[in-house]
């Protein structure tokens, strides 16, 4: 049974607030997180039947606190059976269930929780999973489905992350000022990865992963609300909106990929384009420039062209030059080369690719072959292009991309 969508939204929004209150009161992030999940499940079952309580946050805090004390009581009981000193354990006030509705928290702990879940001591897989559960309020089963792994595997990643937090004694505080920028970078990267997991999903049984893009946008929007002056937070949100805007046009009903230049732009979501473009224009005007803002600006230039041939490639080249200067990596160079080819011709683009042949990071990556194939095709070298497309097709581990590259190669045959 699927919970009423409105209640589900409410629960996901309240999840980090409730968890924040519990962790501030009791410490023990791992136990509190379990208790909040149980309270969310109880609410998802009860609220559609009995109605949403007057103070939903208070209700959740009360129920989660009861679960927590139940858990402690049973642990004490277990220890009592094992320990003759059990008589010393009394029913102190820590065990007393809170009476009635709890006061609603005044401060928003979403940011503190995000810093905790995206702590550098955790593996990337654990950061993603824990963020979606503790901050996003998703169940382990939902996260497992989205990442296409068994629920047990996902449960293990979450529990390992929580153990690690406990073992390393990571506190529930905002990181100290000197570390904050670097830690925020990790948080944004995790949100970006969550978005990408959902966005790159194509069709069929994998469609449910698209829920991840909505979740990533929701969380990034929350961070933007808490840090409105941070240019990179705004940049990432804008990038997500401008990318999400194209989702409906990027695949055919059978899951085949449609490249940007061939997408039916009438199917792009205009509201998302408008919101993303306004956001990036505003932040570029007033915040220090960063990689997410530049990527968002590039996405905005694409999205604002009515037809592919109207694309302002000169502006895109200028943006890639900036991006290469502040955060150079081979993937940026590949995209830069494509843009340069559109302005100065394919030979100029191919020249930019040449240094990547010696780059170890690209040694097993198929994208260099795919981009070179595209530029060779533009240059009229059909045989060279076909060979590169074929090689890229063999190397990619993405089925839809393989299908696309094989089709490109066949058309040149």
């Amino acid at each position: 049974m699927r919970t009423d969508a409105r209640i589900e939204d409410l629960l996901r929004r309240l999840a980090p607030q409730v968890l924040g209150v519990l962790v501030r009161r009791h410490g023990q992030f791992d136990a509190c997180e379990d208790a909040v999940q149980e309270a969310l499940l109880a609410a998802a079952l009860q609220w559609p039947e009995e109605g949403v309580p007057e103070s939903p946050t208070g209700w959740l805090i009360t129920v989660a606190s009861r679960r927590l004390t139940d858990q402690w009581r049973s642990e004490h009981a277990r220890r009592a059976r094992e320990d003759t000193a059990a008589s010393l354990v009394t029913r102190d006030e820590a065990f007393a269930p809170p009476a009635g509705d709890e006061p609603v928290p005044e401060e928003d702990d979403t940011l503190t929780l995000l810093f905790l879940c995206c702590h550098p001591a955790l593996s990337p897989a654990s950061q993603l999973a824990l963020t979606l559960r503790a901050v996003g309020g998703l169940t382990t089963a939902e996260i497992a489905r989205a990442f296409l792994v068994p629920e047990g595997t996902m449960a293990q990643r979450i529990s390992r992350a929580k153990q690690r937090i406990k073992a390393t004694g990571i506190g529930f505080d905002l990181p100290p000022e000197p570390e904050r920028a670097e830690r925020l970078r990790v948080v944004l990267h995790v949100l970006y990865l969550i978005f990408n997991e959902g966005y790159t999903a194509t069709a069929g049984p994998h469609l449910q992963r698209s829920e991840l893009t909505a979740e990533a946008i929701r969380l990034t929007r929350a961070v933007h609300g808490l840090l409105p002056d941070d240019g990179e937070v705004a940049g990432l949100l804008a990038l997500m909106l401008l990318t999400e805007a194209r989702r409906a046009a990027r695949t055919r009903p059978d899951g085949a990929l449609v490249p940007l230049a061939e997408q039916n732009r009438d199917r792009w979501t205009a509201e998302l384009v408008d919101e993303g473009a306004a956001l990036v224009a505003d932040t570029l005007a007033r915040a220090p420039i960063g990689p997410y803002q530049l990527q968002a600006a590039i996405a905005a230039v694409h999205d604002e062209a009515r037809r592919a041939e109207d694309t302002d490639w000169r502006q895109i080249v200028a943006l890639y030059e900036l991006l290469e200067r502040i955060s150079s990596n081979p993937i940026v160079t590949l995209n830069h080369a494509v843009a340069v080819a559109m302005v100065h011709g394919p030979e100029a683009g191919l020249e930019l690719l040449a240094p990547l042949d010696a780059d170890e990071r690209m040694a097993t990556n198929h994208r260099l072959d795919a981009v070179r194939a595209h530029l060779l095709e533009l240059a009229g070298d059909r045989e060279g292009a076909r060979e590169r497309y074929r090689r890229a097709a063999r190397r990619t581990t993405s089925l839809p991309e393989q299908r696309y590259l094989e089709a490109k190669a066949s058309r040149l045959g």
Partner: protein
Amino acid sequence: MKYMLLIYDNAQSREAFFGPDGEALMAEVNAVMKELTESGELVGGEALADPSNTRTVRVLDGVPAVTDGPFVEAKEHLGGYLMVECETPERAADIAVRWPSARFTPLEVRPIMDQSGPEL
């Protein structure tokens, strides 16, 4: 990235797991499985029955042919598989190195194709 570890075996390596060293070998298997389970890297895995239990199926000119036994008397057979999700291909290879049957017969580590499609 998800990887399939294809675990090959032959008559000798299967016997090794039932011989005097079998218990120690199985202890190694269990230790790797425990580690992969706890790390959240294990996606799945099964052992296959002895190749003598195989039925080989082909369709020739629309006519199905089902025969008992493996298609060819290979020196090595697929004995089972592990499916893992790892941060790097090196980590996946490292798991294969520690799988005790690798001392007798090879494992193949192969990336699993993804249904996701990148931005083009």
